[in-house]
């Protein structure tokens, strides 16, 4: 019908596919495929019969595994514990990272670059090694710190049931505060200095500058850091796993991920483990998107 049809565009050059291919293949193989496999696994169960010494059968049980996980009091308790832990850890982490970033960015810090490296350094220690090191520091028999405190009359037992969540929070804080601090410092660096000059001209104090200029402008990064911390906290696994032999306060169902690991590798029930893992993922989605919804008011999208 049109007199002059627009020339048909070539359907994209092959170059972009070649560049995308490595990522897409890896993404599909190591991200999508395992997720699909886990979801499929969670819909089956292996059943035996009689004395259980013969060949088992794999049967399709639909959402039976999910019902089992959700009706297991230990698993539900572990989710509750995790939410409590997140309530402690997330604000603590964000405030610490923000505080350190603002201090190092204030211009009044001595040797800011040295301290930036120093605070970031713990992130380079792998999680298992870090927890082993802190494990030594938490046991009275091997900890110079606890022994010194004991000598002056302060009795500390970080691995008791009342202290163990804080002990784990401490390890996570030590490892990741620097990482989050670096993200926030990059955002702070990006603030144009004319704003500071204008503020000084207007007679603003350091605190006013921080509150009215710096914080609003790094709000997207603060939200990013919070979402990362929420997701990371909900996957808590390494610290309880490594600390478990050191204390009776950590059971094999201390966190949902630990419970899933226990089901898969100690109790030979990978189907239930897959269901638990999917539930943890859903929980992560709910919390992160819930948080983003909360902070993204319609009129001022920060993300």
């Amino acid at each position, binding site marked *: 019908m049109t007199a002059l049809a627009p020339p048909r565009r070539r*359907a*994209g050059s092959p170059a972009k596919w070649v560049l995308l291919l490595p990522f*897409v*293949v890896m993404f*599909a*193989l190591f991200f*999508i*495929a395992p997720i*699909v496999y886990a979801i499929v696994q969670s819909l089956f169960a*292996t*059943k*035996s*019969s*009689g*004395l*259980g*010494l*013969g*060949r*088992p059968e794999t049967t399709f049980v639909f959402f039976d595994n999910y019902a*089992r996980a959700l009706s297991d009091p*230990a698993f539900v308790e572990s989710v509750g514990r995790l939410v409590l832990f997140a309530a402690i850890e997330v604000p603590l982490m964000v405030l610490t990272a923000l505080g350190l970033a603002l201090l190092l960015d204030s211009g009044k810090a001595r040797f800011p670059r040295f301290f930036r490296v120093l605070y970031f350094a713990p992130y380079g220690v792998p999680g298992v090694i870090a927890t082993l090191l802190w*494990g*030594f520091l938490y*046991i009275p*028999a*091997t900890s110079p710190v606890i022994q010194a405190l004991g000598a002056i009359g302060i009795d500390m037992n970080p691995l008791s*049931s009342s202290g163990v969540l804080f002990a784990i929070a401490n390890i996570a804080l030590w490892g990741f505060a620097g990482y989050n601090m670096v993200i926030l410092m990059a955002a702070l660096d990006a603030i144009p200095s004319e704003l500071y000059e204008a503020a000084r001209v207007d007679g603003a104090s350091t605190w006013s500058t921080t509150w009215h200029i710096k914080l609003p402008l790094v709000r997207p990064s603060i939200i990013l850091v919070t979402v990362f911390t929420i997701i990371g906290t909900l996957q808590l696994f390494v610290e309880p796993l490594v600390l*478990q*032999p*050191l204390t*009776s*306060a*950590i*059971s*094999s*169902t201390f966190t949902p991920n630990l419970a899933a690991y*226990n089901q*898969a*590798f*100690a*109790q*030979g029930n990978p189907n239930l483990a897959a269901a638990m893992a999917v539930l943890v993922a859903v929980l992560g989605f709910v919390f992160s998107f819930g948080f983003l919804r909360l902070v993204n008011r319609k009129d001022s999208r920060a993300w």
Partner: protein
Amino acid sequence: MSIPDRLRRPATALAAVSVVALALAGCSGSPSTGTADGEPVKITFQSWVPNIDQAVDAFNDSHDDIQVTLETITAGPDGGYATMLSAVQAGNAADVAQVGYDSIPDFLINDGLEDITEYAEGSADLFSPWQWETGVFDGSVYSIPQASGPLGQFYRADIFEELGIEAPTTWDEYYEAAKVVRASDPDRYIAAFAFNQAPWMIGLAQQGGANWFGTEGDAWTVDIDGDETLKVAEYWQKLVDEDLVKVVADMSNEWNADIQNGNILTWISGSWADAIVRGTAPETAGKWAVSLVPQWNAGENVSATWAGGSASVVLRGTDHPAEATEFAVWLNSDPESVSILTSIGAGWPALADTSAIESLQDDPEVFAFYGGQDIWDTFAESDAAVDTSWKWPPLSSTLFASLSDNVSAAVENGTPLVDAYRLTQEDVVAALTERGINVQ
């Protein structure tokens, strides 16, 4: 940003192809090596027992037709079994593997073992009857027994002498000795209460006369909270409440430090624990001794094992079941091999006739650590007194995890230990029923 329509189909196709490729790659298994003429058959053996390569080398030196490659893996309960079962499912498992007696039903329920009845018949007479039976189910043979872990009491003879106490022969004496030890030094305890170690707790219950699992027809009977077990639980409750034992995980860093410093004086453990004590506290050489486990009634000799013992199994999917079985039988019955196994701490041999085993008759290096005591005599006495009717059910891993969790929680919250055993009873029955297994 959503994928534009014209890219959607190629992207979906790409993802689908990748998933299919992954699935296909997982399904293929590699063809086996070794031919029938001239070339030795090559098989792999997975174990975590330190220094077992000495026994494997001895086999390779004495056999031309079969050559064995040893793969050292993590200890079974710590992840080794999971590795083996995953490999069986993937189709590339080792041929022979080390599995504890307690986990053999677990492997059966997950279809991980090859039926070796036809290759192993004729070997039954070589082994002690109760240990041979741990590998026989429904008339078929699935494993060759290697060693059991009869319990003994390792104790610091020098410190006991210093404190004027004898090695306790009854649990009443043990209680009295615990009080003396505790009073001697604020950091010193007679033993650790290892809340993490289910085999230790199970062994103590077994020694108390309990028998947790049995079969009636085609159903299991589960009796974890029977009277004998609760008697044992109440005894240890008393020790924990009166601060006479240290609540700490055994074989942990803190426990190791205490063993080295003489702050934990005894350890009730299997015969293989000799290698661990010698390795953990070499500077205390000459100061230890071994006695029988304290008895409930004076003059009795009732003993138990630490999770049964160890066996060599042939994993399902092997291409050489006959050769694998031959190796397993040789490893666990040839006198030279068993002598090596005993001296490296593999446990108490499953052989019926141990008179030909050198290292059991005389092992100067080991005996020197115990002030010259022939500890194998003590363990022989212990092994003879083990209740051999004890059976292991499927899902023993669930049993261990549940017992350890419940006892940890009881200790942590100050609730009675007897309740922990009752909870474990419920957990295990529920887990077995969930898997479709009949429970009475």
